[in-house]
């Protein structure tokens, strides 16, 4: 998920740290959003049980795989659209 490509110029120390930090921030935020969305999709909200049921656990596994796939797919689609509009050179 290399979203922040550094240019040709030698990056400064602060820029290098920022680039790694940003990349990890993007990943951490994606993780948090996945927990929120897949919990809403998969968990029984009455909380009559404190344990995950088998069905809930399987649903969470599939939901996370689909979320990753959708993320990647949408990122690719936007990149493609941008390249078409700009005649190449777009980045995501």
């Amino acid at each position, binding site marked *: 998920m290399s979203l922040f490509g550094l240019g040709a110029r030698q990056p400064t120390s602060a820029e290098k740290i920022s680039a790694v930090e940003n990349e990890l921030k993007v990943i951490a935020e994606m993780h948090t959003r996945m927990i929120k969305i897949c919990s809403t*999709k998969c968990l029984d909200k009455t909380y009559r049980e404190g344990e995950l049921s088998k069905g809930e656990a*399987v649903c969470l596994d599939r939901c996370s795989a*689909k979320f990753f796939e*959708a993320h990647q*797919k949408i990122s690719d689609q936007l990149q493609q659209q941008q390249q078409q509009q700009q005649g190449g050179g777009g980045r995501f």
Partner: protein
Amino acid sequence: MDAGLTNAEQRELENRLQKRQVKEFMNLFSGLVDNCFVSCVDDFTSKALSGRENGCLSRCVLKSMTTQTRLGERFAELNQAMTAEQQGKQ
């Protein structure tokens, strides 16, 4: 918007605004992914996206992009009109 900045201040400001743009862009991207995923994906009998889900996601992305562009234009017009009106009052 002109706050009488020196050249050095202007550069520092542009630097920060660029970071803000990246942040706004990432926020819009995350919002788009979340909204399209929530709207389109509801079948958890398999772990790969189905054809129907893929199609829905693809149309959702297209429509969301058009929406963002359209609302961006409207926003710029409305913001300009409001700024002009406020300056007329002063």
